C-alpha cells in the first residue's frame, strides 16, 4: 500500500503543486431568512483527508456546495492557493479543478464506465473514436491505481465500484480538489475501507480531499484534519497530528448520538411470521432471492445487514406483502397462508416517494393505508380520519403540523417522520423499516430506534434493515446478514462482533476462513 502511494506521488508531482491550499475567509450563506453558514474561516491543505463532521442541517453540504460552485456565498470569499476565486456555476468550479461526488451518485446506469467518464468532456472531438478513447481512459485509471472494469455498464457495477467511478470521473477532468459527500453511507465496512484508502492515496499526492461523514471511526482512522460544524458555525477545527487518537475521539464523542450496544438476547416463543424456503426470480430493478428462511417472533427487533442491493428491498417487499415469491410458504401467527397480501404489515421503504403521495394533503397521506377501515357504504369518515391524522402528526412532531397542507411543503426529514409515525400507529403487528434513519438527524433517528424497541416490547416485531452495523447493534435482538440474495449469517445480542458481521456482509461465508481473517486482523 505504501509503495503504491509513493509511486503515485512521484508521477503526479508535476501536475499538482504541493502548496495546494484552500481557504474559506468569512464565508456566509443565507437562504431567505435562514443562515446556513455563518462566517466560516477555514484553511484546508492538500496531502491528507480533511473530514467535515456535523449533524444534518449543520451546514456541511452548503459549505461544500459553495466550493463546488452550486451556491454563491452571501458574503466572504474563497481562496485557492492564495488567489481569490469566484465560482458562478459548477462549471466554473470544475474549470478550477474542483469536483464533488454527491451522496446520490450521478451516473448514467445504461452507460459503460468509459461512457460515463467521457460524458460531457468538452476536450473531445465531435465524432468519437471509441477504441482510442477507451484505451486512454483505461491507461489513466490504472495509472491512478483504480481497479475498475470500465467496460461494464454502471447498472452492473457494485455500489463501491460506482463510487470509485465517480471519483475517477473527477480525476479524468484533472480535479485537484475532491469533495466526497458521505461516500460510505451505503457500503459494507470492507468496501468503505477500500474507498477511504483510495481517497487517502489521492490526498497523499497533494490533492485536497474533503470527506463529509457521519462515521466517527472513519474520521479517526483516515482523516488528517477535521472540522466540526454546528448550526452553520465552525465549532472545532483540529489537525489529527496534533492530537492523539484518544483525545480526538474524545473531542468527537460529544457529537455522537449512538445508543449503547444491546447486550442481552431474550428468547421468545410466540411466532408472528415465518417464511419457509422463499425464492424469487430477478425482474428489472429487483434481484432474485434464494432459500430465505426467516422467523419473526413477538417482542424482537430483527436487524438485516448487508451491502446495498444484497436483497434487502426484496425481502422487505416480501414481508410487506408487495412482492409475490416464486415458491415458498408463509405462516402468519402459525396459520398457513398463500399470500401475505391481506396481512397488515407496516412498511417504511427506503424511498419516500414509494410511501407518499406528495401532491395530496398530510392528512391524506396519514390515512393512505387506513382508508378502508373508515366509514361505511364506500364513504369516507372524514372527521375520524382527520383525528387520526392529527395524532400521527403530533407523534413525531411533523412540521408544519397542518393536516391540510400538501406533502410537497414538507422536508425529507419531516416526511420520514410522518411515514414512520403512520406505520407505528397502524394496527400492524409487524413493521419493516428499510434504512429508516436516512434523512433524519441524529437525535430523531435515536428516538426512532427507541420507538421501534418499544413497539417490539408490546408483543410485536420489527424487521430493521440498515447497511450501518453500528446502528443495528444498538437496537436489534439479533442481526441477519444478507449477501447476493441469501441470508448468510446470524448473530444474537450479547455476542455481537462488528468485524465478523462486516466480513459476512462482504461475502466471506466460510466460518474457518472468517475466524482466520478475524484472527489475522
Amino acid at each position, binding site marked *: 500500500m505504501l509503495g503504491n502511494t509513493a509511486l503515485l506521488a512521484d508521477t503526479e508531482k508535476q501536475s499538482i503543486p504541493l502548496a495546494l491550499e484552500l481557504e474559506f475567509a468569512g464565508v456566509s450563506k443565507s437562504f431567505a431568512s435562514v443562515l446556513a453558514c455563518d462566517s466560516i474561516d477555514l484553511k484546508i491543505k492538500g496531502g491528507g483527508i480533511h473530514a467535515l463532521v456535523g449533524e444534518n442541517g449543520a451546514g456541511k453540504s452548503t459549505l461544500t456546495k459553495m466550493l463546488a460552485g452550486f451556491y454563491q456565498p452571501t458574503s466572504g470569499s474563497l481562496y485557492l492557493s492564495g488567489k481569490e476565486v469566484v465560482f458562478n456555476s459548477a462549471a466554473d468550479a470544475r474549470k478550477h479543478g474542483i469536483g464533488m461526488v454527491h451522496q446520490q451518485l450521478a451516473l448514467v446506469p445504461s452507460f459503460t464506465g468509459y461512457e460515463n467518464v467521457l460524458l460531457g468532456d468538452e476536450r473531445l472531438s465531435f465524432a468519437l473514436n471509441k477504441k482510442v478513447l477507451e484505451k486512454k481512459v483505461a491507461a489513466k485509471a490504472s495509472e491512478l491505481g483504480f481497479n475498475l472494469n470500465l467496460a461494464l455498464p454502471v447498472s452492473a457495477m457494485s455500489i463501491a465500484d460506482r463510487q470509485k467511478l465517480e471519483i475517477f470521473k473527477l480525476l479524468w477532468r484533472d480535479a485537484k480538489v475532491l469533495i466526497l459527500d458521505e461516500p460510505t453511507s451505503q457500503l459494507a465496512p470492507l468496501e468503505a475501507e477500500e474507498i477511504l484508502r483510495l481517497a487517502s492515496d489521492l490526498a497523499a499526492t497533494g490533492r485536497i480531499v474533503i470527506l463529509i461523514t457521519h462515521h466517527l471511526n472513519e474520521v479517526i482512522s483516515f482523516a488528517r484534519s477535521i472540522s466540526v460544524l454546528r448550526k452553520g458555525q465552525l465549532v472545532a477545527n483540529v489537525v489529527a497530528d496534533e492530537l492523539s487518537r484518544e483525545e480526538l475521539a474524545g473531542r468527537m464523542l460529544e457529537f455522537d448520538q449512538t445508543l449503547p450496544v444491546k447486550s442481552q438476547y431474550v428468547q421468545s416463543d410466540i411466532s408472528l411470521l415465518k417464511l419457509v424456503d422463499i425464492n424469487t426470480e430477478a425482474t428489472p430493478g429487483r434481484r432474485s432471492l434464494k432459500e430465505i428462511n426467516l422467523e419473526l417472533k413477538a417482542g424482537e427487533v430483527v436487524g438485516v445487514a448487508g451491502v446495498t442491493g444484497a436483497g434487502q428491498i426484496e425481502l422487505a417487499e416480501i414481508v410487506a406483502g408487495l412482492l409475490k415469491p416464486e415458491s415458498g410458504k408463509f405462516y402468519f401467527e402459525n396459520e398457513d397462508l398463500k399470500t401475505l397480501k391481506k396481512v397488515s404489515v407496516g412498511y417504511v421503504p427506503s424511498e419516500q416517494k*414509494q410511501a*407518499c403521495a406528495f401532491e395530496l394533503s398530510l392528512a391524506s397521506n396519514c390515512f393512505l393505508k387506513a382508508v378502508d377501515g373508515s366509514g361505511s357504504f364506500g364513504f369516507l369518515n372524514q372527521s375520524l380520519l382527520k383525528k387520526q391524522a392529527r395524532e400521527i402528526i403530533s407523534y413525531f412532531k411533523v412540521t408544519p403540523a397542518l393536516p391540510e397542507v400538501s406533502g410537497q411543503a414538507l422536508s425529507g426529514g419531516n416526511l420520514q417522520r410522518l411515514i414512520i409515525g403512520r406505520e407505528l400507529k397502524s394496527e400492524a403487528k409487524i413493521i419493516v423499516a428499510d434504512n429508516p434513519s436516512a434523512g433524519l438527524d441524529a437525535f430523531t433517528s435515536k428516538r426512532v430506534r427507541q420507538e421501534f424497541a418499544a413497539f417490539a416490547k408490546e408483543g410485536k416485531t420489527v424487521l430493521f434493515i440498515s447497511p450501518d452495523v453500528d446502528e443495528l447493534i444498538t437496537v436489534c435482538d439479533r442481526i441477519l446478514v444478507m449477501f447476493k440474495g441469501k441470508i448468510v449469517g446470524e448473530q444474537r445480542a450479547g455476542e455481537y462482533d462488528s468485524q465478523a458481521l462486516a466480513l459476512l456482509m462482504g461475502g466471506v461465508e466460510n466460518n474457518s476462513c472468517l475466524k482466520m481473517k478475524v484472527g489475522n486482523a
Partner: protein
Amino acid sequence: MLSKAAGAMIAFSGSIASMLFGFVAVGIFLLLSGRNPATIYTGIFTGAFGDTFCLSETLVAATPIMFCALAVAIAARLGLMNIGVEGQLLFGAIGSTYVALTMPETTPSWLMLLLMALSACVCGALFALIPALMRVFMDINETIVSLLLNYVAALTVEYLIHGPWQDPTTTSWPQTMAFPPCAEMPHLEGSRVHLGLLVALIIGFLLMLVLHSTKFGFKAKVIGSNPQAALYAKYPLKRYLIVAMLLSGAVAALAGFSQVSAIEGRLRSGLSPGYGYTGFLVCFLAKHNPITIIVVSILLGGFLSGADSLQLSEKLPFATVNILQGMIFIFLLASENALKSWSEKLRLKLQAAEAS
C-alpha cells in the same frame, strides 16, 4: 401559508389569464389576416350570449363538451390521458344509432332512450377498454393508442353511413335514416336545449361527490398522484385504472348519444367538430374539477356557437376556434407552472416577513 381558497383562486386566475392571452394572440393573428378582431370578438360574444336564443344554442354546444370534459377528468384523476374521448363519443353515437334503428318504432320513448343510452355507454366503454388494457397489461402509452383509435372511430362512422346503415331513400347523402320520434330526447320548450344537459350536470355533481367523499375517489386521487404509493398501500391499481377508463368511455359516449338523439336525429358524418379535443382542453382549464368543468364548458360552448354564427356573416373559417383553443391551451400550460413558482416565491417572501 396560503389558504386552500387562495390557492384555488390563483390556479383559476391562470385559466382566466390564459384565456385573455389567447384572445389577444388570436386577435393579432386575425389582424394580420386582414380581419378586424373587435368586430369578430363582439360577433362571437353576441352570437354566444347575446339573447336567449343564442344562450340556448350555447348550452346546446356546451352539452357534449361537458360530457367529454367530465370523461377526460375521470381518467385524468387517475393519471390517465384519455384523448380518445372523441372516438368514444363517436362509438357512443354508433351504439345508440343501432338501437334507434333496430327497435320497433312503437317502443315507449323512455325505454327507447334508456336502451340507446345503455348501448352508447357499452360501446364507448368497450372502445375505451382497448387503450386501457394496453396501458395496464402492456404498459403502452394510452394517449397514443387512443389518438389513433379516434381515426378508426371516424372511419367506422363513415363506413356505416356509406355502407350498411345508409339511408336507402337518399343514396347521395352519407347518413342513416332519421330516427323514429320515440328516439328523440325531450327538449326544453322552444329551444334545442335537451335532457342531455341535465344528465351532464348530474354526472358532474356525482363525480364531485365521489371524488370528495368516497373511498373510491380517495384511492383514485392517490393513484393519480403517485401510482407507486398506491401499490405500496395495496390498492388494486389495475382494476381502478380499467374501471376509470370504462367510466370515462361511457360518459364520453353519452355525448354521442345526446348528439344523435337530440340534435341530429340520425347518424351522419361531421357529428362532432372535435368536441373530444375541446373537452380535453376544458378539463385542463378547469383543473380536472367537475364543477369548474361545467362553467368552463358553457364558456367554450359559447365560443363554438358564436364562431359558428360568424362562419357565414364574416366568412370566418371555423378553424379560428381551433386556433383560439390551441392558443389558450398553450398559455394555460405555461401559466400553470409560472404561477406555481410565482406563488411559491410569494409564500417564501411572506414567511421571511413573518420570521423577521
